[in-house]
Every structure is written in structure tokens, then in C-alpha cells.
């Protein structure tokens, strides 16, 4: 289920606190895909991502009584997921070095747009996934959460525990880095396919 169209069926927090498994399963089903995607893009490993995603929901369950509703429940859950991933990365010292931000000019952007248009729809998602794998954990998380969570800077600021301006800057840097990766990948694909 795509989170872009969710949040309509709010889970009953009181029922979950009283041990209602069905209500908790609804909550897990609503958020598991985004939690798992963020974990996968940060940790770059399916098994680890699944483990951290499970631990995230366990933490959600054990800390739900502390949730006072100062932000959206989904924001609170994704914040736990993001922090759990950071903890895991610190634990295994796998924090990928961030690549220096290299601005992309308008001509390059136009070329990338043209190439991207020509890629078949089904392959676009695959292409994007490959690019995401090369992105640093924090950049991948910020882009994924922003584009799947209503694109609100305010919510992102709460989620990442940063100011809105900082989030804006981080988002721009993440976009630039992704554009650079897309550029390199497109060149690589063109070279392989057409020998250009």
C-alpha cells in the first residue's frame, strides 16, 4: 500500500495500549512499507532493514503510552525508524561518507530529463532504486520521507529534529547529490548501450 494515499484509517491507540492485536496489526500494515523502505535505503541490506523495521514497531508499541500527540503519529513512527537506523549504522560503523555537493547546471538537467523521459515506465522505478543505493543513508532517508510524507517541511523538521531551514538545505543537498548520481548512471547506461 502506498503511503501517499493513507492516514485515512487512523488506528485506535487506546485499543493498542490495551493489547488489541488487530488494532496494532492495522497500524503496522499502514506504516510498514515506508518504515521498511527508509530502513532499506539507509542500511542497504534487506535482512538488516527488516530487523530494524521490526524493532521500530516494537519500540512504537512499548513507547506508545508516551506519545502525547504533539505531532502526527506517522511522523513519530518514522522518527523512531530513522533514529533506529542511525543507531544501527553507528553500531556497525557503516556510516557512508557523504559525497561533496557538486551543483548540476541547466544544460545537464535538460539532458537528464530527456534521457529519463525515454526510459520505460517500469524501468524508471528500477533505475531510481539503483540510484538510491548509491546515495548516503541520510540523503536517501530525507528524500524518501519527504516525497512519501506529504512534502511538508514542518513535519520533516519534527521528524529529523532539525529546524525547517536546516531541513531545506539538507533537502537541496540531497537532491543535488541524487542528480549527480543520476547523471553518472545515465552516462554509464548510454556508454554500455550505445558505446557513446
Amino acid at each position, binding site marked *: 500500500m502506498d503511503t501517499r494515499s493513507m492516514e485515512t484509517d487512523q488506528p485506535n491507540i487506546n485499543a493498542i495500549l490495551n493489547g488489541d492485536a488487530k488494532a496494532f496489526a492495522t497500524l503496522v*500494515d499502514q506504516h510498514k512499507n515506508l518504515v521498511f523502505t527508509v530502513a*532499506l535505503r539507509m542500511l542497504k541490506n534487506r535482512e538488516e532493514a527488516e530487523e530494524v523495521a521490526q524493532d521500530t514497531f*516494537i519500540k512504537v508499541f512499548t513507547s506508545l503510552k508516551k506519545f502525547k500527540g504533539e505531532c502526527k503519529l506517522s511522523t513519530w513512527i518514522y522518527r523512531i525508524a530513522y533514529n533506529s537506523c542511525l543507531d544501527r549504522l553507528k553500531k556497525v560503523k557503516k556510516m557512508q561518507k557523504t559525497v561533496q555537493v557538486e551543483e*548540476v547546471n541547466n544544460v545537464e538537467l535538460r539532458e537528464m530529463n530527456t534521457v529519463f523521459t525515454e526510459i520505460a515506465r517500469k524501468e524508471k522505478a528500477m533505475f*531510481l532504486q539503483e540510484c538510491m543505493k548509491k546515495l548516503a543513508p541520510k540523503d536517501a532517508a530525507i528524500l524518501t520521507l519527504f*516525497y*512519501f510524507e506529504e512534502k511538508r517541511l514542518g513535519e520533516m523538521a519534527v521528524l529529523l529534529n532539525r529546524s525547517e531551514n536546516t531541513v531545506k538545505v539538507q533537502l537541496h543537498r540531497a537532491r543535488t547529490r541524487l542528480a549527480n548520481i543520476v547523471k553518472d548512471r545515465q552516462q554509464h547506461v548510454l556508454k554500455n548501450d550505445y558505446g557513446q
Partner: protein
Amino acid sequence: MDSKEKLEEFIDRLMAEDRLQTPSDGFTQEVVDRTLAIYHTKIEYRPLLPKWMFYGFGILVVGLILFGFYLYTPNGNYVNYDLVLGKMHDWSAQLFLQFRLSKTVMYIIVIAGILACLQTILLRKHLNNRFA
């Protein structure tokens, strides 16, 4: 349109094609099972001090109460302090007659006491972290 906006537009277009990944089929059930196990776990309270220590403490308290009754005089004063001090003086004079404490030993005892206090703080922190 500046390059920042163009970049934003391009990434927006790119991310519109993005799809969420799905975890394994049994994901929800596994999470629910784990949480139910946590929910139904009964907390077992174990006493911090062993029973014999409680009995010892009880005997000590009863002893002190009896000692209090022994010292009680009905003439208005609740405790006959002269009697207590006199008894204590005799007892300590007997016990510490040959006892001499050098300054070095006293300093060692003080340092050991400070270290014990520090260790208590560290130990408490360690145990809190371990059982958090």
C-alpha cells in the same frame, strides 16, 4: 526559472516514479507476535535484599526497642542519658584499650570510603544502563 527550481522540478519528476519496497509476507504477524509476548510478560518482582537480612534487621529493631524500654525511667525523662553514656564509656574503654590508629591508616580508610562512594555511583549507572 533558476537552476535550483529546475533541479527541484527534475527530482520531483524522478521521485514521482518511486515505489515503496515491501517487507516479507509474515512481517506484520511476526511483529504482532513479538509485541503480544511483551504485553503478556508478567513482571516478576524479586526482593533486593535476602530474607535473612530482613530478619536480622527486624531483630536489631526489636533489640533497640527493648533497649529503649530498659533505659526508660518514669520520672519524666524518657531516657537516662547518664546511664547510657556511662555504659558506653565502660564498653569502649574495654574495647579500645590497646587500639591505636595511625594517621596513614586513617587516611587510607577515608580514601577507601570515597572510592566506595564513587563505585556506588558508577555501579548504579552501569546497572541502570544494563537493565534499562
